[in-house]
């Protein structure tokens, strides 16, 4: 308590030197929380979007299906297995049939994945109900990125080409029934959604599917012969790994910023102990033990962090709350990066994030303050009183 009281007096008395350190440290603290809040918000939204639009609560893949190898598509579909028939008819899972195809917008050729999906499905957020419209051409829905790449709009008619199970090429006219907006590039870029029954007919693959997507609110996972169960965590692995990398990358910047702030505090401590030897000697003459003096100087240093937390909170909390509500609008073109990212990210500042960051800064500052202060315990008080450099 005494150390706190004296340290406070000394810091306030030191004036500008104290406040410069405190402001730098408060800035670092604020930036760390802000940055990690953005990443956590991004991660949360990306997880939510991917679950809603793509992965559901897990999937069953045909045993030959490899999303990274399009050449496997021809061999990776088969009849709906018996154990999944009831779940399919109950709407708990939705089958998806996938094949390779090409689209010819304005005479250009562009490769794509043609995905057959049930118009009645409620498992993922693709607006598949639009596939039910009456039209001379086959109705299809595409995402914003696909529409942009192919320069297609709702109502446009274009030609697509595909191969059936006998590897025979065929072509038809399709009509863009809907262009949907989605933050998940995996369900948008280079993909076209078509009524699954139509695609089965086109491919001559009746009652077949490449994968099944499980509804968010259902747990499945029982083994189905010829099909591999992929749980939610597995399907989110890539996204989670990427977020980890982002955090690590961001951490480097903040480690450097934190080091700079710590260097300033270390420098201040070393300078204090060098310049305030007479003061140290006086403390000892007046009856402070050396341990009390070391503690006083350590608390003085550590108090920079406490003040930084207070200063950071004064301007940080209103700003962070404001941004939590308003969100952080990503720069134009970010959605072309090919990663799942919302147009506006709403940061998440959890108690864990804030406490961890504050504790980290407090502990590091205390250690950095203690290191030079240890020198005091080796000082000769009679020389210190006279201000002799030791």
């Amino acid at each position, binding site marked *: 308590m*005494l150390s706190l*009281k*004296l340290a406070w*007096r*000394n810091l*306030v*008395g*030191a004036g500008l030197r104290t406040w410069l350190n405190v402001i730098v440290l408060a800035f670092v603290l604020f930036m760390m929380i802000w940055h990690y809040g953005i990443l956590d918000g991004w991660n949360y939204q990306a997880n939510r979007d991917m679950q809603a639009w793509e992965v559901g609560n897990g999937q069953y893949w045909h045993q030959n299906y490899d999303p990274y190898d399009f050449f496997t598509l021809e061999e990776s579909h088969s009849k709906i297995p018996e154990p999944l028939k009831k779940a399919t008819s109950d709407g708990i899972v939705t089958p998806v049939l996938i094949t390779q195809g090409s689209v010819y917008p304005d005479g250009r050729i562009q490769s794509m994945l043609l995905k057959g999906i049930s118009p009645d499905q409620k498992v993922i957020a693709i607006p598949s109900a639009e596939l039910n419209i009456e039209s001379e051409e086959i109705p299809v829905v595409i995402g914003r990125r696909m529409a942009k790449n192919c320069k297609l709009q709702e109502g446009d008619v274009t030609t697509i080409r595909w191969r059936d199970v006998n590897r025979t090429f065929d072509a038809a006219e399709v009509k863009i029934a809907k262009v949907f907006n989605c933050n998940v590039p995996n369900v948008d870029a280079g993909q076209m959604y078509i009524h699954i029954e139509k695609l089965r007919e086109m491919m001559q693959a009746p009652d077949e599917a490449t994968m099944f997507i499980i509804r968010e609110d259902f747990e499945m996972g029982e083994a189905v012969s010829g099909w591999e169960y992929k749980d939610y965590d597995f399907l989110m692995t890539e996204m989670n790994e990427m977020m980890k990398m982002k955090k690590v990358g961001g951490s480097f910047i903040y480690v450097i910023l934190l080091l700079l702030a710590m260097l300033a505090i270390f420098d201040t401590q070393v300078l204090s102990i060098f310049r305030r030897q*007479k*003061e140290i*000697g*006086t403390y*000892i*003459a*007046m*009856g*402070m*033990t*050396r*341990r*009390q003096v070391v503690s006083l100087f350590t608390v003085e240093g550590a108090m920079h962090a406490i003040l930084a937390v207070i200063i950071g909170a004064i301007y940080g909390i209103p700003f962070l709350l404001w941004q939590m509500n308003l969100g952080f609008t990503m720069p134009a073109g970010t959605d072309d990066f090919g990663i799942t990212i919302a147009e506006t990210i709403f940061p998440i500042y959890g108690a864990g994030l804030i406490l961890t960051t504050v504790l980290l800064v407090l502990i590091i500052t205390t250690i950095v303050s203690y290191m030079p202060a240890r020198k005091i315990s080796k000082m000769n*008080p*009679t020389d210190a*009183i*006279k*201000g002799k450099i030791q």
Partner: protein
Amino acid sequence: MEQNSIVTISGLIKRFPIGKGHFTALNGIDLTFGKGQFAGVVGPSGSGKTTLLNIIGTLDSPTEGNANVLGQEVGKLSTKKAAVLRRQHMGFIFQTYNLLPVYTVFENVEFPLLLLNISRSERKKAVMDALDWVGIADKVKSRPAQLSGGECQRVAIARAMVKKPELVLADEPTANLDSENSHHILQTMENLNKDLQTTFIFATHDDKVIKYLKRKILLEDGKVTADDIITN
């Protein structure tokens, strides 16, 4: 130890290492200081005055011999016990005042009371009394940089006296002061010595101080060469 004596020194030797050899700063000192004395150790520079004061003040320890201060053997005191002894029973006045630069006059004088865990109201009263004694109560909010040398030394005296210690050690307290300020400060200390029965031990070679002493101990080359009681 004599009755009423608060410092008893016998056969005190203090050597400082220099290179491979050593320098003997104090060489066989035998002294006793009684309660309420206004005594001074005088002598030329390098005679060992400050070293003697440092040992009495438990800031240093003897190489040989004994120094008993307020019933404690200095050579056997741990640094923690020595700190407690200084905190509770001793006051220090330095040539360069050694005020804490970022503290106000009030906070400087209050400091020894903070170490003694005295309540806020008692601290306030004691500090204002001490500042009244030295005639500087109107400068409570000033910082040392805003004071003259004489004022700074008065604050230092108030700081040394605020806890009403049994022993005050003053090392060249007037060396940086002009004649008028020196006399004022010495009169203040003399009055406090009379009123509170505090023992004052000075280390000085300043004639202005010597005039006020009731006991003058002459130290030359680390040895006591004269010890006179001045009766007028």
